[in-house]
């Protein structure tokens, strides 16, 4: 345990929460907005700090910045233990980056009851930072719920079309998923006999006394489907496009980009290492659902979308198929690829949701058939959207490529046939991605759009609109060109041998 009074993880969690509290206590709107900048920027700076110093700081049990804070519940093994290992670190940084971009977008969104909206978003951000900084399973779950509940409220209150239905559906699905995974976590806690919730202790105990493979398989199943719903595993994915279509921009960015990764993170950080024998019997079912369901079927469904946000939502569900495939492989390479993909997908989907709102502000429609030729009036927006599209379809040079590529390599060892169908995804995603870019930005404008644009010509992105997009795009390119920037920490965990090599 470090005794350094400067604890970046705790600050990243506490700062947005404190700002939210201050706003909630009745700070005037002008000050609320200014303070909100601080609330969103602090986790971002802390995330950069953690990333920069990660390789140099000492690790305890593989965790850097490990601290423990009493909660009064230590009798049952619940203490606030914060720390990041090589897999948590990239996601913690992702949360900081996307949180800052989403925050900038929200502050400028001009939403009604802006103070409450910002407050909820800050609570959500606090939960996100906490989720990936928690070593204790109890807080891992607690912070997830802390982020999830504001999501429902924001969708239901500030959402767009069908917001009440969407919020209800999201709530039902995500609650069900969270409940199932909670059952799984409790089962691990009880069966291990550890009487402690912290992952390090659980890992040591279960390594020394593994559970019977039957109960491992049962618990893994609970976690798999619980987390699976949260990550939109086919056929439990229908909440996602609907929810994201209705959600306000910043909420969609934070949920699709970061919060959704909770399920994958749980499978990688908890289920696979703690229940190594439990993963095997589920592998083929999971991979089959991921490849045929998420990648092929949802990939085809994405082709049929006319609404920009629905299209992004479905494409995001499709990309989760790659992640599930990597987890089904269960090997070090597969898991490493999933972590890379999680970061990359988080950045790119957040960027796409952000830009789709920028498009909507100019076209007043999300129907791609009613647009066209927008690149003439808004070339910078077109360049950003095109870059984000190429990122999400896995063009080398963007972070997503490394994730998809390594997962494909890993998948061949798992199943030749499934790999063939999974690689088919690179064609499907190119079709819908480029088709969307062409329908929105290139060619001739539609009659309706030309008439509307004639009255009030759309303007290009302003600098304040560009800033959040630049942060996300810059990160995508940075990791795309220099994957070691995050893969070295991941490799540090993979090297410890907690995942299979073959």
């Amino acid at each position, binding site marked *: 345990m470090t005794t350094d009074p400067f604890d970046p993880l705790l600050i990243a969690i506490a700062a947005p929460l404190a700002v939210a509290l201050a706003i909630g206590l009745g700070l005037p709107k002008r000050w609320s907005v200014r303070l909100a900048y601080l609330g969103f920027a602090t986790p971002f700076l802390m995330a950069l700090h953690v990333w920069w110093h990660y390789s140099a700081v000492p690790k305890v049990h593989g965790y850097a910045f490990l601290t423990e804070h009493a909660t009064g519940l230590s009798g049952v093994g619940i203490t606030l233990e914060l720390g990041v290992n090589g897999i948590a670190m990239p996601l913690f940084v992702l949360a900081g980056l996307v949180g800052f971009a989403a925050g900038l977008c929200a502050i400028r969104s001009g939403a009604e009851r802006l103070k409450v909206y910002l407050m909820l978003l800050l609570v959500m951000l606090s939960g996100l930072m906490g989720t990936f900084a928690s070593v204790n399973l109890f807080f891992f779950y607690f912070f997830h719920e802390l982020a999830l509940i504001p999501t429902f409220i924001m969708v239901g209150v500030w959402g767009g079309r069908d917001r009440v239905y969407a919020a209800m559906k999201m709530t039902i699905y995500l609650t069900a998923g969270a409940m199932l995974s909670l059952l799984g976590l409790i089962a691990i806690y009880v069966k291990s006999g550890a009487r402690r919730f912290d992952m390090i202790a659980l890992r040591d105990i279960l390594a020394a006394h593994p559970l019977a493979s039957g109960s491992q398989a049962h618990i893994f199943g609970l976690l798999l489907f619980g987390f699976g719903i949260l990550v939109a595993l086919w056929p439990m994915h229908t909440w996602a496009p609907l929810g994201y279509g209705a959600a306000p921009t910043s909420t969609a960015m934070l949920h699709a980009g970061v919060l959704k990764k909770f399920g994958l993170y749980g499978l990688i950080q908890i289920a696979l290492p703690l229940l190594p024998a439990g993963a095997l019997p589920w592998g083929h079912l999971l991979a089959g659902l991921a490849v045929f369901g998420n990648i092929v079927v949802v990939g085809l469904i994405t082709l049929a979308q006319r609404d920009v946000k629905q299209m992004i939502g479905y494409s995001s569900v499709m990309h989760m198929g790659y992640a599930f495939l990597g987890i089904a492989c269960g090997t*070090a390479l597969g898991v490493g690829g999933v972590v890379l993909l999680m970061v990359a997908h988080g950045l790119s989907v957040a960027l796409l949701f952000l830009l789709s709102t920028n498009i909507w502000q100019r076209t007043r429609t999300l129907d791609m058939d009613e647009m066209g030729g927008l690149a003439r009036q808004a070339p910078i927006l077109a360049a950003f959207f095109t870059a984000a599209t190429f990122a999400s379809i896995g063009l080398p040079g963007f972070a997503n490529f490394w994730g998809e590529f390594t997962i494909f390599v890993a998948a061949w060892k798992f199943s030749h046939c499934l790999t063939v169908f999974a690689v088919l995804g690179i064609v499907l995603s190119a079709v819908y991605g480029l088709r969307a870019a062409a329908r929105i930005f290139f060619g001739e404008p539609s009659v309706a759009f030309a008439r509307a644009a004639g009255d009030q010509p759309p303007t290009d992105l302003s600098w304040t609109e560009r800033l959040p997009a630049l942060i996300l795009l810059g990160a995508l390119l940075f990791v795309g060109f220099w994957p070691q920037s995050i893969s070295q920490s991941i490799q540090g965990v993979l090297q410890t041998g907690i995942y299979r090599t073959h």
Partner: protein
Amino acid sequence: MSPVSLALLVLLLPLAAAGFIACFLRRRGGAASFLSIAVAAVIAVGAFALALGGNRFEAATEWLRLGDFAFSLGFKFDDLAALMLVIVGIVGLCVHVFSAGYMHDDASRGRYFAGLSIFMFSMIGIVLADNLFMMFIFWELVGFSSWLLINHWFGKPAAAAASKKAFITNRVGDFGFLLGIVMCYWLRGTVNLSELGAQGAAGHALFSRAIPLLLFCGAVGKSAQIPLHVWLPDAMEGPTPVSALIHAATMVAAGIYMLCRIEVLMVPDALTVILWVGAATALYAALCAFTQRDIKKVLAYSTISQLGYMVAAFGLGSVRGIDERGEVVVVAAGVGAAMFHLTTHAFFKALLFLGSGSVIHGCHGEQDVFRMGGLASRMKFTFATFTIGVGAIIGLPLLAGFYSKDAILALAYANNRGAFAVLALTAVLTGIYMLRLWLVTFFGAPRSEAAGAAHEGGFALGAPLAVLAVLAAVGGYFGLHPGAFSGAFAGVFSLVHEAAGAAATVILATSIGILLAAAGIAFAVYRPAKVSAAGDAVEASAPGLFAALVALKESFDRVYDYYIRKIQQRLAMLLNFIDIIGLAGLLIRGGAGLVGMVGLGARALHVGKLSSYVYWFLAGVVVLWLFASGVL
């Protein structure tokens, strides 16, 4: 400067230039074009320095490691890479200079030159790559730069559609390419080209065939072979210099270069497939060229046909022959002949495309050759250089194409008479349609106002034509004298198969016969007096034949269009419907299985009130706490 750092400079400089232009010079077209051309000049000089400096090296660095999997970036600079790098350097510089004149009045010059620089970066990456993973990265990046440049005039719906089609069609090829690479990695244990070379072709019977054929899929996409050739004619929507550089001389030839790189993985069965795909493409595209009125599209089909020639040449490589003493010998000449033709083709096809650019520029954007005519007197310099290009492609003796085509025909004659017949027929057709293009464009009376007022472009348009015309004239020298340039490219050109004895006579006779037949037919059918602005002479005199050729040309697009609209899109709509109605409505909400039950339970607990979830969650925490602390 060490060779490795020079190679690194040549690779990274265009990337830096593209980044700089994208960030700072978007609206300063002049500065952007200057920067981009300067970089292209450095690349050309660097390419020559590397190739002629005599250093052949390999260097690699690890770029990503996950578990036991390592991904490295590295250079493999041998004679093959040296040759390709020099081609890219020369043609690249010519096209950059030409673009400065051709695109002078374009409002988006910055984007255009940034795209050219990105392309140079990607293409040089393919050339220098020392392993298949790295090659795949740059393979995708050239696809992206191709998309960017075809889409340059994005306001035109045709350009937007063509760029999309090019990228997606290439992705279909890359689907196989990527699978082949992954398969190669696991079954051979490495994707490093030199290590693969040391292993030789061997192993599992099925996979040893599957790997080269899947890798070949990449070449089918990139080099526009049947059935993925459909994107290249459409890609002519891009600016003409782009067509010269990317869609004629370098990028589309990358498929052949890649095949030569993985030659060690080839097995006879795979080569036979490659041979016939190439031969079929060569013949098919030559037939299609007859239906075209657009000067660039004729050249595009000609490019496809010539690429088919190269692919066929590669496929001929390992076909075993029997020498005079009755012993079986392996004629490993495919790489030599393919690369020889790639080299000469890069020069004369870039020349032809830039020449067509000069014509289009002179005629103020007119691309229909039947609305040109009589340009020989108005654009004398363009006419002279274009004529050299036409002479080279139809195989006029002493010009470059004559030697490289003969090398392929000689190889075919030695190894596979069927392929020889197809390729010889293709050569006749090539002669006819190229002379048709030449006669209709440059002779007779002007058939439109624009053609009547045609004029030469400036120095920027003329100088590249002159350089390329010289190369198209003397380029055959490399193949005949492998030791030229102190043997810098001997590793490639010493492999060129030369016919000897009776075979040499047969080849020479065939070659002359092809030329005479083509010239005779072309002059008979397309002599200037018979050409009118209304249309093609064949269309008028033999409408049935012409319609059949048009139907042949359109058949692939028709089939793909039917598949996309009637099958793929309908399937997508159906699945979408099922997704919304079926899964969302019935299966999941119906509550089948555990998930549904929990979902129903959850729903029962909060009918319409989101906030109740909070209480419910808190209750759960209390229960958990009680349970954990042993109260329950």
